[in-house]
């Protein structure tokens, strides 16, 4: 009685599977082209002309970065402000800043940072998220971490901690000594500063607003 129905035909489902897969893959590739354009790194000229890039150029280390609520977008975004000294200079050329970032990014991989910390929220959950670590109040001049290292600037304090982590334990869970040199530490701090300038669509929410300014009831 049962006629050969298209719904019970293997060939039909085989073709459907191929079409669905192909369509999804093409859509993904198309979106990848669009996204790749949007997340390519900006240039020094972009920064000077105030062009907003999702991932700014390496010379962003010459500027002050803050993380502020954007009412139109409904979440926080990094804001690049006036010039700010980084290890005593605010005139790193595109080449110098790029080299520092390169060293820092290589260092972040060579030291397996991602297997304890999260970067942009991805990695391991054994240590704090580093996405906006550069903006963490603990490293500011009034913060506990800067005070502990006895340094006068955020970048020097961070570099000191990275080189001698076990000298500055904050909790029972300590960062191990990974043999990070002074040059590598400088690169890593540049890498962290650059990462904090990336537009992450508001992740993490309420960063640095202790006791949740909006939630704390």
């Amino acid at each position, binding site marked *: 009685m049962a006629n050969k129905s298209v719904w019970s035909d*293997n060939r039909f489902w085989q073709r459907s599977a191929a079409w669905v897969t192909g369509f999804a893959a093409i859509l993904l590739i198309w*979106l990848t082209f669009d996204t790749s354009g949007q997340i390519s790194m900006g240039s020094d000229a972009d920064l000077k002309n105030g062009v907003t890039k999702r*991932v700014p150029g390496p010379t962003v280390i010459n500027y002050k970065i803050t993380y502020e609520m954007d009412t139109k977008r409904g979440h926080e975004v990094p804001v690049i402000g006036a010039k700010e000294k980084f290890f005593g200079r605010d005139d790193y050329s595109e080449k110098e800043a790029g080299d520092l970032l390169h060293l820092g990014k290589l260092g972040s991989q060579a030291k397996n940072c991602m297997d304890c910390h999260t970067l942009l929220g991805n990695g*391991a959950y054994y240590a704090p998220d580093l*996405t906006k*670590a550069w903006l963490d109040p*603990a490293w500011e001049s009034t913060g506990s971490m800067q005070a502990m290292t006895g340094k006068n600037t955020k970048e020097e304090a961070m570099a000191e901690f990275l080189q001698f982590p076990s000298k500055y334990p904050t909790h029972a869970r300590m960062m*191990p000594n990974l043999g990070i040199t002074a040059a590598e530490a400088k690169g890593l701090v540049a890498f962290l500063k650059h990462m904090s300038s990336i537009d992450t669509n508001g992740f993490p*929410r309420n960063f*640095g607003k202790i006791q949740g300014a909006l939630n704390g009831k």
Partner: protein
Amino acid sequence: MASNHLKWESKQLATWYFTFAAIIFGAQLLFGLIAAIQYVMPGFLFEIVDFSIARILHINALVVWMVFAMIGSVYWLLPDETGIETVGIKIGKLLFWVFAAAIVVVVLVYLLVQVGPADETTIWFITEGREYIEAPRWADIGIVVVVLGFIGNLYATGMKGKPTGIVTVLMADMLAFAGIYLAGMFFTDNISVDQFWWWWVIHLWVEATWEVFVGAIAAYGLITMIGAHRKVVEMWLWIEVAMLFGSGILGMGHHYFWIGTPEYWWEIGALFSALEPLPLVAMFIHVLYDWGKQQGAAHQRGEEGSVITNKPAFTWFILQAFGNFLGAGVWGFFHTLPQVNLYTHGTQFTSAHGHLAFFGAYATILIGMMYVAIQGSNGIKVLKHTKSSIAAAWMIAGGVMGMTVALTIAGYVDVIVTRAQMGATWAGYFDGHSGMWMLQGMDWRLIMGVVTFLGFLFLIKDFLSTGKNAVHIR
């Protein structure tokens, strides 16, 4: 494993892959235990085997043993499906030793060298430092060569013999599986671009190509273990492929919420990852449906007893159907929408989901395939449960479920304290991680991890002894 019952060399090679996979599985659990102890006692092996090293070994061993068991599964089912000996079996055997030796070298370097200076030599020879695919570049290239050899064998055999639906799906799937790995082999200074492509490897493996792989293995298992009708099973398989790739490929969007990528990924990620549980429900129902149909038909023919010819393997296949649905489906869905993921991304929740999903979707079915191989190697008609096989299934599944629940509770604290209240700062992180629920959650995770490991010991005991057991029907 005794092999005088194996008339195919391909199946013999499969048993090598399964044996190596089981050993690496043990290593995965051991390093997982070290990492779990470090959560409870942070001083444990400090600056000897730090958490980062234990975790690299934990998750890399996971990937490696699964890939080995997957390759083993394919070599096992190829002669059954195509009706011929695998083409290029000699090359297959050579590649096995190359692959295994490379893995041993990589592991020793992870363990003994650990980290390197911030330059390209570290990336080439020590670690690439990218979660799951830390393997240094020389090993990346080696892996590609070995896997291409394996795929060459698969294609040659599939085209020379009878290309069934299952083999056709595997041929397409394995090519995608290997091809995607190439997306994870380059270095860039741009961390957003880095993570964008890194997810191509990780996501398109575990939420697309691996899922389709287990769909094909489940289809093979249903045909061989309960005599399900090939036409029905293969039709299901094609529907599952359509659903898995249809939702899984663009489900990638849920990893692109916060890494610097544009906002439109919120909608794409939310929509497609909401669809992702559907194929998992379908796969679960598929097993239930075929089992019910076959058992019903057997009873109608007046046959007493079960239609299942390999009880332990079928148990693990059922656990897979449940585990995939729970781990990937339930634990995935409850933090996949961007509104909530903003707070759960990168917390202990992710860890809870990861544990249950990897175990439920993949570990289970691959253990099931190892039992299929034990049955075949010993020429057993009906492989029954032993005390050890039951203890192993209960303790491993119960242990992983226990770890998942403990991590979920810890994750809830993490979300509320670290994220929602404290905004994810350094201080907020440690506030979240010193709460009572977090600490007790980590205690229970360790206890359940020990249970899992004891279950693994029972499993190995059963692997080594069940072939000689007299309870089976030969």
